[in-house]
């Protein structure tokens, strides 16, 4: 009887504290989900033990990946220098090349689709159809696209370029049509009143007016593709991920994998910093908006 009274008073206390009640509810739900997935204390402890073993084997990182020649490189490396033909340099250069080509092809293909998907530039039926198409490209992550293309065109960077290009079309296309829809109504109305075609309105009014955002998104996408270019390599689609997979799967050379990860991390940090600096040039306050140009992107010190 007394216990029932305590339970009732606890329940009353909890009802007066809805946040605490929500937290307890979420905690219970998380425990139930973890049990359903058979995540248990012993399995977590086992995983932690494995992590310690891997860390012990990975440390110190083996930077011979920067100096030893990768005779098994795909495609083969023909430079005399061992450094230029090392797994880290080949992998990193391939990752950057895959990201560059995927971003370039992706942008060229996504921009026309994005202009057709923008509500303010296209009739409703066309923009709905184009949005569905762009969404279809985004449904599969780049890793799954890479798996498909490895099956279709075989192991190597081509599969990576194709996979990343398709994902770029879907992802960048969405960013682009949102930027185009953000263009003010008046330039477009002035253009329409002149009797210009939809293509002319998009090409000469909407795209130039949104160009700051479009260029900024392009830099962001390149950055994103460099990071994801390493992931698609894990399924054989080229890039530094492919070399990580080579060391991981048959040999479990964790120290070399760690060295490759450090090389990738440093590269991504540098690209992030440069990209952020360049993007800031385009996304500033209205008063300081600058005219974007390619020289400004690639040679920023010349454009002032």
């Amino acid at each position, binding site marked *: 009887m007394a216990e029932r009274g305590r339970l009732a008073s606890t329940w009353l206390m909890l009802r007066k504290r809805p946040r605490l009640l929500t937290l307890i509810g979420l905690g219970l739900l998380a425990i139930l989900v973890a049990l359903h997935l058979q995540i248990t204390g012993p399995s977590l402890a086992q995983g932690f033990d494995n992590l310690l073993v891997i860390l012990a084997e990975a440390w110190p990182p083996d930077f011979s990946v920067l100096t030893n020649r990768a005779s098994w490189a795909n495609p083969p490396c023909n430079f005399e220098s061992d450094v230029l033909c090392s797994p880290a340099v080949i992998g990193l250069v391939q990752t950057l090349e895959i990201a560059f080509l995927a971003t370039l092809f992706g942008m060229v293909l996504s921009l026309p689709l994005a202009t057709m998907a923008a509500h303010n530039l296209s009739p409703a039926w066309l923009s709905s159809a184009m949005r569905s198409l762009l969404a279809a490209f985004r449904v599969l992550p780049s890793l799954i696209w890479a798996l498909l293309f490895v099956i279709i065109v075989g192991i190597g960077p081509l599969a990576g370029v194709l996979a990343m290009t398709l994902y770029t079309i879907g992802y960048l296309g969405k960013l682009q049509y949102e930027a185009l829809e953000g263009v003010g109504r*008046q330039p477009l*109305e*002035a253009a329409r*009143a*002149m*009797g210009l075609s939809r293509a002319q309105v998009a090409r*000469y009014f909407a795209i*130039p007016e949104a160009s700051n955002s479009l260029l900024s998104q392009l830099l962001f996408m390149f950055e994103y593709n460099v990071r994801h270019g390493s992931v698609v390599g894990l399924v054989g689609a080229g890039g530094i991920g492919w070399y990580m997979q080579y060391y991981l799967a048959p040999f479990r050379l964790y120290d070399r994998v760690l060295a490759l990860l450090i090389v990738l991390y440093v590269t991504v940090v540098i690209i992030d910093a440069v990209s952020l600096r360049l993007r800031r040039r385009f996304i500033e306050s209205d008063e300081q*908006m600058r005219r974007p140009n390619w020289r400004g992107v690639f040679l920023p010190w010349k454009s002032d």
Partner: protein
Amino acid sequence: MPEPILRLTGVDIGFAGEEALVHEINLEAYAGEVIGLNGVSGIGKTTLLRTLAGLVPPLIGELEVLGQSDLSQLPRGSIGYIPQRLGLVHHQTVGYNALMGALPGASWWQTLLSLPSGEMRQAARDAVEAVGLSEKMLDPVSLLSGGEQRRVAVARSLVQRPRLLLADECLGELDETTSETVAVQLLSLAREHDTCIVLVDHSPARTAALCDRVLNFRRGRLVEDEPGLIRLPMLGGDN
């Protein structure tokens, strides 16, 4: 009697599903004529211009431009529109924006390859010079003052040479000298190229001075004033 450039017969304007802003507009405007529209904010001046530009359909009545009631069938570039905020491409240069006036006359391959003809470029250069911005030809529009931006919008219309030009408060918020400069350029289209201009303005004195006819919005109707009594000397007026 020449054919009117613009003819409205029993036109109500406003937005579908809402009550009309202005009722039963009957108006004819001819080549070379400058018509001023006066009225307080929110009374329907901009909506009327957008209707004339073919951007909003009239609720009832008949609207004809150059004898054509389906405005999408008009030859390209027949109508010019300077919206209240000018409708310029802000990240692009003065020259680029002026050149946009030539776009209606561009062929498909000039559009595709972005290759305007020498004549088009020259027309843009002449228009920018006419509005006194030659030195700023390569400056981005976003870096210009409000008055300079209005001159760029006028330069675009000078290149376009539309048969009907709709200008929404493009003389507002300017100092007297700049306003006069912009007005002179704008009206040169009517005087030299027979463009019919419909000019919305907040200032009754300015519209009376600049326009051949002035119409006022009163109680949901468009009412024509007596002919303007004051004329600016440089516009060729003699009253």
